[in-house]
């Protein structure tokens, strides 16, 4: 690591760790709650060292109960704290669903706007790490459909470092998705304050292009970029948009890109039916009815429970399926 303000190279997991550390340094009311987040530093080590440095009162190993974690975080928020909850794996958030959907998401409305809910729920998500059942899910749709929540996903160390800090600073509840299969991938991170950064809820054109747009988030951004690189060999220029914010969607950026390229492919690991691709397809069909040369294509997980790991690669969206979908948009 280098000096604050300088640029260093970090893996995604370490970048989020650095961001959390910065957030805790900046505001003594930021707490971390979860299973094994303390001494172990989390099963992915994203909270590594935080308990040692900030103590057991600020980095709390909770009982094994997700509803309890989120419910307690809500109470802490009422008391003025800013809890960051870790859900150990995507598939373990469901026991907390009621507290997230009926309490966390609704409390500001219920209180007539008097109670802010600055709670972050970190969820390592997605497949590709050869894990057993419930450890590879992409369940963002449930939260994107839930009014009162904000939902984001980071795809790079630089974004992981910045976005976690912005999520912690938000006075609204933020579900923060971390693409676990990218935890160990490294990238440049500029430490320290950066007022000029892209706001949390803006998408980013990570590769400009002219012939078609590929929209992705989290781990799928790399797949989209690889597809764009491969397409270049075939003489096609693909624009890649990293959504970053899943709720709200940055529609202006999406519409702008769609109007320019006139062809759109959305990629996500979540099941197809009512995955984010549905919303993006519906919105773009509406906003770009005359501009689109082809219907928005969806490259997604299938509508089955996440498959056993020995065959997961067949089920995850990959470069070939993305390129096939791009081809389809040229078939209209």
């Amino acid at each position, binding site marked *: 690591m280098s000096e604050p303000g300088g640029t260093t190279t970090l893996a995604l997991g370490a970048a989020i760790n650095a961001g959390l550390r910065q957030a805790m340094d900046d505001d003594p009311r930021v707490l971390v709650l979860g299973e094994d987040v303390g001494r172990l530093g989390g099963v992915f080590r994203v909270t590594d060292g935080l308990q040692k440095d900030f103590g057991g009162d600020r980095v709390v190993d909770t009982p094994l109960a997700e509803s309890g974690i989120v419910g307690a975080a809500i109470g802490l928020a009422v008391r003025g704290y800013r809890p960051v909850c870790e859900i150990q794996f995507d598939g373990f958030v469901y*026991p907390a669903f009621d507290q997230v959907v009926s309490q966390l998401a609704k409390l500001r409305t219920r209180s007539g706007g008097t109670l802010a809910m600055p709670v972050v729920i970190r969820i390592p998500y997605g497949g590709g790490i050869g894990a057993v059942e419930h450890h590879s899910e992409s369940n963002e749709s449930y939260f994107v459909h839930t009014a009162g929540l904000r939902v984001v996903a980071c795809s790079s160390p630089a974004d992981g470092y910045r976005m976690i800090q912005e999520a912690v600073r938000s006075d609204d509840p933020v579900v923060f998705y971390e693409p676990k299969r990218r935890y160990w991938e490294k990238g440049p991170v500029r430490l320290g304050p950066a007022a000029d950064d892209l706001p949390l809820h803006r998408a980013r054109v990570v590769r400009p292009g002219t012939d078609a747009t590929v929209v992705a988030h989290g781990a799928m951004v790399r797949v989209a970029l690889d597809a764009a690189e491969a397409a270049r060999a075939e003489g096609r220029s693909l624009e890649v948009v990293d959504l970053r914010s899943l709720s709200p969607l940055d529609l202006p950026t999406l519409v702008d890109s769609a109007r320019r390229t006139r062809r759109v492919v959305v990629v996500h690991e979540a099941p197809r039916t009512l995955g984010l691709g549905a919303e993006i397809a519906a919105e773009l069909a509406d906003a770009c009815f005359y501009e689109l040369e082809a219907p928005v294509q969806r490259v997604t997980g299938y509508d089955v429970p996440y498959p056993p790991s020995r065959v997961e690669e067949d089920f995850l969206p990959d470069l070939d399926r993305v390129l096939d979908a791009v081809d389809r948009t040229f078939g209209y």
Partner: protein
Amino acid sequence: MSQPLIDPPGQDDPGVQLLTPGGRRVADPGHPLDVDLPTVQGLLRDMTLLRRFDSEATALQRQGELGLWASCLGQEAAQVGAGRALAPADFAFTSYREHGVAWCRGIRPTQMLRFWRGSAHGGWDPRAAGMGNYTVIIGAQALHAVGYAMGIQRDGADAAAMAFFGDGATSQGDVAEAFTFAAVSSAPVVFFCQNNQWAISEPLSRQTRVPLWQRAHGFGFPGVRVDGNDVLAVLAVTRAALAQARAGGGPTLIEAFTYRMAAHTTSDDPSRYRDAAEVDQWRARDPLLRVERYLRAEGVGDAWFDDLGAEADDLAEGIRSGARALPDTDPLAVFDLVYAEPHPAMARQQAELAAHLASFTGPREPG
């Protein structure tokens, strides 16, 4: 195979009692209470006004002014005893029935009625009142209380949180998780369970086969049953539990043994599932009557009671006019409540609804 319903044992043990149904002050060495006469008068005043509010609200619902009302008739002592045990720095998280607790926190009846009228989901600023808004999802608030108490610990404050819930709520996983979180962190929280014997149509035996106060022992903290119709006993037991919590002694579960005298809500018809005789039995243990008897025996005269009656009449009149005058939420304001920070969908949809509402000239067709 049919399993007979097991009657939770101890149904004839009312728990800690400091005032008999006949109005006689009794001592319980384990639960001392030092109250002067004006304090007891104050408690009866709270309960009397609460009962009047409650019956007024029931009437308002019948008149179509409220969408629903969940009566606390019969539970006044439990709610006022607990509510008056709370210190200003404490914080209460309740279900939908604790109007008496809200009353003690200084929340006005009309503020409470905003919820029941359908004007708002809340009705007061929780932080200003020291009490969260009504919570409808059974048991969810127990965890909020524990989290709040964990915050108190971190602040080093001299305060406690209190979670109110019903007998039915003890079956919810959230309540058990709250017990665990509170126990392992020794959080300054008091769990106050109003066992009013019914969860809508289900008797207590559908939720437990042992008295509810015993649940606490399995989690490693004290549980105590108190006569929930004895405001003095409730005050004493709750004060002690709160003091212990504030002093770092960890959580307590209080089971206030009481009875839901009215229907579950104004939508409910209890004649379908319970005997009038049972209700009659409990009428003899009325929480207000015993205090009145005690006060009269102590020499409080008609004049005081007449004044109280007049005050209740005034309150009722204020509630009636106040409820009718309650403004509905401005539909467009709904979009401003959801997020603290700007949100494009809220702006867009607010404009959409504004345009839609503006398009009406005459009355609208029902959906």
